[in-house]
């Protein structure tokens, strides 16, 4: 019985997720186009090209799917599973409201972080098995980037968990009177930058820089297998936007409107901001990327944890105010300093 | 509830497989992987005994997490040594790595 309920819920979630991904893809096409002052898709489906994503899916279905001759066929075929399945397992733990959640775990946030570890193994599998030097290079660039940004990512989550004394995502949301972004601005900034890098979207799209290493770890993939990598990327996009909303922006809490609507609204706003960043900024250099990860974000997230812990313990009564004041001071001071030194 | 013996027998088999791997392999990296299998068998045993016999004092779990952390450190240093030896001797064969025999 529980088995059937589980399967039913999973099917429901997969349909929901796919719907949102289709909306995301269409929105992204339109947002990019309008920011670049062009129209984007307008033909398919008459109304602003709404059927474009469906047309893309059909096209991908019909594409020939080659497996390179020299490749390791087994690993080549298993890699899309390794990238997609854990990403989809993680999405079940995301609550739409205080009761609407499929997998409600005591260790919620840790569960999502732990599953994200599979992504880079899957990338290396794809890149290595293709037997192509560019894909191997792309895979290792991707793995290097992802593992550098995984750390600040995990550490800022610890910072949020400290304020709520829990790893459960629903408890974390319920304990936020003021959105955490206003109490921990350092954590929030680090989290958003790390999220953008985890998704390896521009300005952090070094792993699949088309002009340098063709397309990264999935060069040799075509047709439906390639589409699965693309799909997994959008699933992680949804996960990261939802995590940002839940951990830092008060999740499903908000006045008047019902909780799931608030939650989706926040996710879509975040998605829009990420798309905006993606289309506006140029790509960073690999050395800048590594410097940012290890020499700026990692110390900053550790500082965030140390500040939070000390202030909560030393000033147990007024800690939210004290923490907010301290962290905002540090952020503003850093910005002023940077503004001075860079002309 | 699953009988405790299932876990114990499972980990005994896993440990023996790992043991065979350590004895029969000559590639250093595969050797390390077999050691990891044995470590995991031990960890499963720790957790199972701890949960079934003394559910409130979680001593076995503590052993497990410290074993995990030190196992991770062991793999890190072990692989670095293997890579260094490989750069010097161009081999991963543990039968040929006998620099300590001077």
């Amino acid at each position, binding site marked *: 019985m529980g088995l059937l309920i589980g399967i039913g819920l999973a099917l429901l979630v997969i349909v929901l997720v796919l719907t949102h991904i289709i909306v995301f893809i269409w929105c992204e096409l339109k947002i990019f186009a309008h920011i670049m002052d062009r129209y984007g898709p307008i033909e398919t489906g008459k109304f602003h090209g709404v059927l474009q994503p469906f047309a893309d899916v059909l096209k991908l279905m019909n594409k020939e*799917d080659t497996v390179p001759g020299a490749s390791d066929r087994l690993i080549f075929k298993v890699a899309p599973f390794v990238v997609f399945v854990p990403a989809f397992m993680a999405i079940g733990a995301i609550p739409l409201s205080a009761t609407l959640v499929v997998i409600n775990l005591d260790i919620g946030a840790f569960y999502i972080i732990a599953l994200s570890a599979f992504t880079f193994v899957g990338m290396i599998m794809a890149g290595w098995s293709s037997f192509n030097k560019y894909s191997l290079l792309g895979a290792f660039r991707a793995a290097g980037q992802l593992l550098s940004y995984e750390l600040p990512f995990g550490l800022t989550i610890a910072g949020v968990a400290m304020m709520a004394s829990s790893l459960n995502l629903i408890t974390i949301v319920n304990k936020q009177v003021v959105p955490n972004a206003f109490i921990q601005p350092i954590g929030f900034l680090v989290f958003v930058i790390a999220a953008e890098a985890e998704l390896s979207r521009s300005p952090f799209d070094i792993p699949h820089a088309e002009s340098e290493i063709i397309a990264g770890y999935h060069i040799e993939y075509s047709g439906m297998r390639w589409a699965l990598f693309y799909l997994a990327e959008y699933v992680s996009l949804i996960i990261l936007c939802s995590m940002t909303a839940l951990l830092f922006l008060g999740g499903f809490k908000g006045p008047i409107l019902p909780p799931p609507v608030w939650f989706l609204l926040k996710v879509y706003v975040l998605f829009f901001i990420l798309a905006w960043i993606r289309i506006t900024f140029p790509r960073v250099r690999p050395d800048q990327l590594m410097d940012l990860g290890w020499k700026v974000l990692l110390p900053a997230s550790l500082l965030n944890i140390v500040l939070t812990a000390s202030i909560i313990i030393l000033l147990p009564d007024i800690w939210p105010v004290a923490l907010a004041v301290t962290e905002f001071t540090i952020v503003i001071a850093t910005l002023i300093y940077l503004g001075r030194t860079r002309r | 509830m699953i009988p405790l013996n299932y876990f114990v027998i499972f980990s005994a088999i896993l440990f023996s497989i790992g043991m065979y791997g350590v004895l029969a392999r000559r590639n250093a990296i595969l050797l390390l992987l077999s050691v990891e299998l044995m470590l995991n068998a031990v960890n499963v045993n720790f957790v199972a005994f701890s949960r079934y016999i003394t559910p409130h004092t979680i001593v076995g779990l503590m052993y497990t997490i410290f074993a995990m952390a030190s196992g991770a450190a062991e793999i890190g240093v072990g692989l670095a040594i293997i890579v260094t030896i490989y750069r010097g001797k161009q081999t991963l064969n543990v039968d040929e790595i006998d620099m300590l025999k001077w």
Partner: protein
Amino acid sequence: MSEYLSAYLNVAMFAVVAFCFVAILLGVSAVVRPKKENPVKLEPYECGMVPFGGAWSQFNVRFYVFALLFLIFDVEIAFLYPWATVFRELGITSLIEMLVFIFILLLGLVYAWKKGVLKWV
């Protein structure tokens, strides 16, 4: 069935459904798509040039140092999470414990920084 087990049953079902979903997508496209292979098509893609050399290039050892640093801080994160949920109850002693822990690991990061291995090559 307890809440705990049903939550993890759902996790397992998510894995199964995702697996089947991927398998079905690939199966359908395997039926629909054309299959016209020829030796040139199966060569590694190098912008249309004939590939030269093998796929394996020698990597720099610094890649490995990054992986090790990642491992070490990953272990730190794994210990930080249970601490984050209880440090308020345990008070100032647990704060000092964790500060010592973070400080020791930070020494490692500083050492790596000073040795100049935190550079991408």
